[in-house]
């Protein structure tokens, strides 16, 4: 945790926690309930705790407590070790010590809610919560900051609410289990524990007043949503109209635990509306208490450190994370790897791993800001020993995670609620870049808009109307699509308000926007149906890399705040971004170097949407995609460029200081033609034709395919609908691909040779398979592709059951496959099963061996399938009846792009056509 964040205030709680220092072993208490083997620990722990409690907040029985209280408070603790011994035996186990202790605390009225309330939701952590809460309850220093407990009036509601939620969300059985557990732990409280639901009504209604309005609006937001869905939301909102995490002190950093609580809630559902309401509720709370933490909160929600184009990457892989988990929890790497294979989610592994190695004093609780700073520090660590320092950074975060629950021998119970609100789980997932929450970026955006509107309107003491909410959403969506950078938008929004956002945040060169996408179609007639009676135009769909060129001339008056450092220079801005907003300037320096060839003088600034295509200088024609992909990704030097590229522009989004996205396509095209001039082999306009005649379109399509294009783009030409809609897959743009029309005519029948263990959803099944074609001449099976799509879950289960018994440790000698270790499947099978597979395309790859001997002039590469898709099992076929490699070679040769290319289309190993939609 960065030094900055701590304040003196922390010190006291930290010291109090000293109790936990030795009390860190209180967790076993919980184990005690569950796991008899740990009994001894548990007891000992309880005894350990006694000595250290500082402010008389000891986790122990009342009498012990009071006598310690009287003599320990301000100074250092006194030696205490012998005292506990008798008690240890007296109480049957620390479980009961706990119970009594919290019962004791219950006497301080409010503090009792903390533990109980938390129980259902964060069961795994509960036992340590209890004593935390207890200590804060009486100490009252910074309660909200550290732990959810009952010091603020709002939290009064928690019991009611959480209870309600527990009932809603959990299977009945679990609830029952839990309440049993609860009663175990808090016997004399049990009655109270459940009663607050009804009894606390004064406090509850108080908070409802705060939150109710917004929530009632939430439903209004989706007028179009089905009635049923709305009802669900409504009941949901009613039952939990308060924040799931109690308020922290206004102005203080948002506790990370609060965010995790929300994450856990989100994870527990798959319903979008409910996810949305959780998000929005939490953002509202952040806005109300600590608006300056809104940006880090939002960024952590979408799991990005910075906007994509800033190129900030954590640069850590699974193995690094595993190492860090191992080091901070004292488990060996092998055990963690085994866990990972079994569980398939490092986040859960981390949660589970807490912790055989208890820590000394409790670290400070994590804050949202602190987590983000920590991640940023990890991301920006470079140079000597970067790996070690990155691991140190991760360890720092991990050891501070779950401060409330750390040290229990067993860690978080990951079988319950997917690990619940465990901080380490979410930190690791953040590090992995996979949150697995089902929280779409879009949802965060909407939630943010709602939260902002509600926040602003309710500041004036009014209730926001449905229209206002809708308007806020639209505004934010529009602004974000044109300027996808929360770093710019969030501060502007906080300063000027959401309703004035459009004036302050506009499309600007230097900040890449998400490109507009086209809807796929199956036939030209479909196109005609869509554009009937409209003006539309057809363009070649070049098979290259979608790019956005941003340019601001050095003499431009206007200053644009680009957060991309590499792009900014004294020469203004000139940069190329990918469709995913990554900075491609280092990949295509040759394009940038030639900008002045085709940009007419006097152009101040522009943003151009285009396709970058490989260009054959000799034949003067477009090269296949596979060859473009052979270019280096980074640090390309202009003079080393082997594959020349040509830019085909088809849209203009910004020109001379003004966004043009709202203009019609006809106007934009006109402006584009005035601003740029074609230079052969460097820059061209996408070839287009305005027609509505079916035959002409068909001819045009055929021509486009002959010109090595993918097919056609058909676009609305005039009117409002022809505007540029960033980031949308719009029906105003349609694509007609040759793949869709003809595809790769036949499917292939391939033999399964091996499989890879699945991850995530496919944990404990096979995630992908290694397939092969048959070579009858040599009687070998030659690998052709990995296959991971086209399976339904039941099919995967079936295949796993079918294949796993026959797994063999190593490949038979008659398999021809890549010897590279990274290319080996996790398990091998004897050749037995034949599957029918369909693919989009054939390509060459050094990773596979199919048809190796049948291709002229190609060494060390086999034919592979692009986008293979599982169709069905062919039980009727024997492995020897599988598709022969000769046929594969033939199919490859037949392929348009290849048969026309002189050299057979190079080798685009692993070239990824990210334009393809399944």
């Amino acid at each position, binding site marked *: 945790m960065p030094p900055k964040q701590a304040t003196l205030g922390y010190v006291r709680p930290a010291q109090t926690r*000293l109790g936990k220092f030795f009390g860190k072993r209180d967790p076993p208490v919980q184990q005690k309930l569950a796991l008899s083997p740990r009994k001894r620990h548990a007891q000992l722990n309880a005894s350990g705790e006694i000595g250290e409690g500082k402010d008389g907040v000891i986790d122990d029985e009342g009498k012990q407590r009071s006598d310690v209280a009287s003599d320990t408070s301000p100074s250092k*603790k006194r030696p205490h070790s012998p005292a506990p011994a008798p008690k240890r035996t007296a109480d049957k186990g620390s479980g009961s010590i706990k119970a009594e202790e919290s019962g004791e605390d219950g006497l301080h009225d409010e503090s009792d809610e903390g533990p109980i309330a938390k129980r259902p939701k964060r069961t795994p952590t509960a036992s340590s919560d209890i004593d935390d809460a207890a200590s804060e309850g009486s100490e009252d220093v910074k309660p909200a900051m550290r732990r959810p407990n009952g010091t603020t009036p709002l939290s009064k509601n928690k019991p009611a609410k959480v209870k309600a939620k527990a009932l809603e969300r959990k299977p009945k059985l679990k609830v029952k289990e839990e309440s049993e557990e609860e009663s175990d732990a808090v016997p004399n409280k049990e009655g109270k524990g459940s009663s607050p639901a009804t009894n606390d009504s004064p406090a509850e209604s108080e908070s409802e007043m705060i939150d109710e309005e917004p929530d009632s609006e939430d439903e209004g937001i989706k007028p179009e949503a089905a009635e049923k869905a709305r009802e669900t939301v409504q009941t949901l909102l009613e039952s939990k109209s308060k924040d799931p995490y109690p308020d922290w002190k206004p102005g203080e950093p948002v506790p990370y635990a609060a965010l995790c609580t929300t994450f856990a809630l989100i994870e527990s559902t798959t319903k979008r509306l409910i996810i949305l309401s959780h998000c929005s509720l939490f953002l509202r709370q952040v806005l109300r208490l600590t608006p300056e933490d809104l940006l880090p909160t939002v960024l952590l929600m979408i799991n990005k450190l910075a906007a994509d184009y800033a190129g900030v990457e954590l640069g850590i892989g699974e193995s690094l994370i595993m190492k860090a988990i191992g080091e901070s929890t004292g488990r060996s790497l092998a055990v963690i790897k085994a866990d990972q294979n079994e569980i398939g989610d490092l986040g859960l592994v981390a949660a589970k791993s807490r912790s055989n190695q208890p820590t000394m004093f409790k670290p400070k609780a994590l804050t949202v800001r602190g987590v983000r700073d920590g991640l940023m520090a990890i991301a920006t660590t470079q140079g000597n020993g970067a790996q070690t320092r990155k691991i140190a950074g991760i360890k720092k975060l991990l*050891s501070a995670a779950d401060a409330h629950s750390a040290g229990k021998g067993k860690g978080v119970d990951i079988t319950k609620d997917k690990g619940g609100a465990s901080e380490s789980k979410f930190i690791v997932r953040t590090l992995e870049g996979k949150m697995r929450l089902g929280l779409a970026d879009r949802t965060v955006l909407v939630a943010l808009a709602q939260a902002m509107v509600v926040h602003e309107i309710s500041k004036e003491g009014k209730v926001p109307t449905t229209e206002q909410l809708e308007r806020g959403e639209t505004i934010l969506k529009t602004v974000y699509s044109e300027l996808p950078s929360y770093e710019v938008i969030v501060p502007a929004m906080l300063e000027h308000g959401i309703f004035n956002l459009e004036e302050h945040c506009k499309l600007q060169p230097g900040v890449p926007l998400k490109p507009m996408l086209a809807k796929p179609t199956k036939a030209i007639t479909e196109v005609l149906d869509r554009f009937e009676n409209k003006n539309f135009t057809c363009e070649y769909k070049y098979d290259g890399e979608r790019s956005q060129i941003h340019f601001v001339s050095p003499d431009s008056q206007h200053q644009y705040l680009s957060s991309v450092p590499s792009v900014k220079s004294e020469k203004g801005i000139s940069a190329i971004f990918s469709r995913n907003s990554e900075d491609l300037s280092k990949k295509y320096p040759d394009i940038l170097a030639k900008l002045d060839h085709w940009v007419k003088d006097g152009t101040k600034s522009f943003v151009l949407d285009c396709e970058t295509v490989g260009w054959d200088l000799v034949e003067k024609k477009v090269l296949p995609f596979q060859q473009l992909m052979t270019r280096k990704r980074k640090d390309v030097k202009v003079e080393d460029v082997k594959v020349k590229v040509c830019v085909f522009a088809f849209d203009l989004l910004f020109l001379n200081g003004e966004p043009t996205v709202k203009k019609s396509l006809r106007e934009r095209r006109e402006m584009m033609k005035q601003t740029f001039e074609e230079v052969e082999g460097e820059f061209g306009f996408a070839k287009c034709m305005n027609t509505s005649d079916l035959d002409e379109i068909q001819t045009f399509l055929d021509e486009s395919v002959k010109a090595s294009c993918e097919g056609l783009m058909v676009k609305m030409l005039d009117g409002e609908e022809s505007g540029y809609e960033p980031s949308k897959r719009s029906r105003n743009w349609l694509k007609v691909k040759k793949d869709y029309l003809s595809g790769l005519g036949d499917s292939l029948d391939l033999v399964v040779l091996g499989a890879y263990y699945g991850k995530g959803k496919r944990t404990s099944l096979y995630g992908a398979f290694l397939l092969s074609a048959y070579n009858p001449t040599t009687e070998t099976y030659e690998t052709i592709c990995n296959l991971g799509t086209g399976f339904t879950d039941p099919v995967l289960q079936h295949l796993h059951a079918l294949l796993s018994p026959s797994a063999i440790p190593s490949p038979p000698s008659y398999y021809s496959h890549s010897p590279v270790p990274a290319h080996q499947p996790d398990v091998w099978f004897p050749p037995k099963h034949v599957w029918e597979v369909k693919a989009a395309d054939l390509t060459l790859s050094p990773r596979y061996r199919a048809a190796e001997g049948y291709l002229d002039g190609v060494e060390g590469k086999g034919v592979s399938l692009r986008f293979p898709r599982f169709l069905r099992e062919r039980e009727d076929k024997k492995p020897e009846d599988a598709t022969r490699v000769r046929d594969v070679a033939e199919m490859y040769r037949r392929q348009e792009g290849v048969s026309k290319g002189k050299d057979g289309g190079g080798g685009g190993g692993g070239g990824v056509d990210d334009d393809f939609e399944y």
Partner: protein
Amino acid sequence: MEARLEQALLLKRVVEAIKDLVQDCNFDCNDTGIALQAMDNSHVALVSMLLKAEAFSPYRCDRNIPIGINLTSLTKVLRCAQNDDILTLKAEDSPDTINLTFESSESDRLSEYDIKLMDIDQDHLGIPETEYAATITMPSAEFQRICRDLIALSESVSIEATKEGVKFSCAGDIGNGSVTLRSHTNVEKPELNVEIDLAEPVALTFSLKYLVNFCKASALSGSVKLCLSNEVPLLVEYGLSGSSWLRFYLAPKIGDEE
């Protein structure tokens, strides 16, 4: 604050011993001496050091000054000192830098360095005085040897103190091993004594990686004191000249690997 140390070696070794555990930390100076307390990143181990005023000659410090320093930087500067140079530390009342002067004891060479300080907001943690169930004093070299030998086999060591003696044992993939020490008095060389002071038998498991790290302090003192009690951190103490000390605490491991 001004403190003069007859031998730079002392500070060099202290910093050398802890710099792998802790990157940045505060040296808290007050009229009784210089204290340091810091935990490693994972909060598993804690270093605590006290250099009492008597260790210096002279020592002057009028108010409490925290000196936040990056230990890597400090190491770099301390490398510039000869072992028997006279080292003087100087800092203002609310310092931005700390000044180190090395005077050669033989020649008239005088070198002077300033290190920029950092603002480290560190909790000061009260470490409870504990009556340990077992206190073992042994030659520091012996302890170091045990740790180094056993880490070859396993990641963790279990230390078991009984009235028979103290047994360090470990089990790893390749096999297991143990070292047992009994009370032993060497009249001629008292620094080789092994003393075991036992109130009740204890057995705890610790991460060897940390212990090996602690052993870097072996050069500071001929003997080391291990204090154990069930369910509390292990205390490893190296006595320094006067009644100053360097202590390491290490949280025990719970349970076995499942």
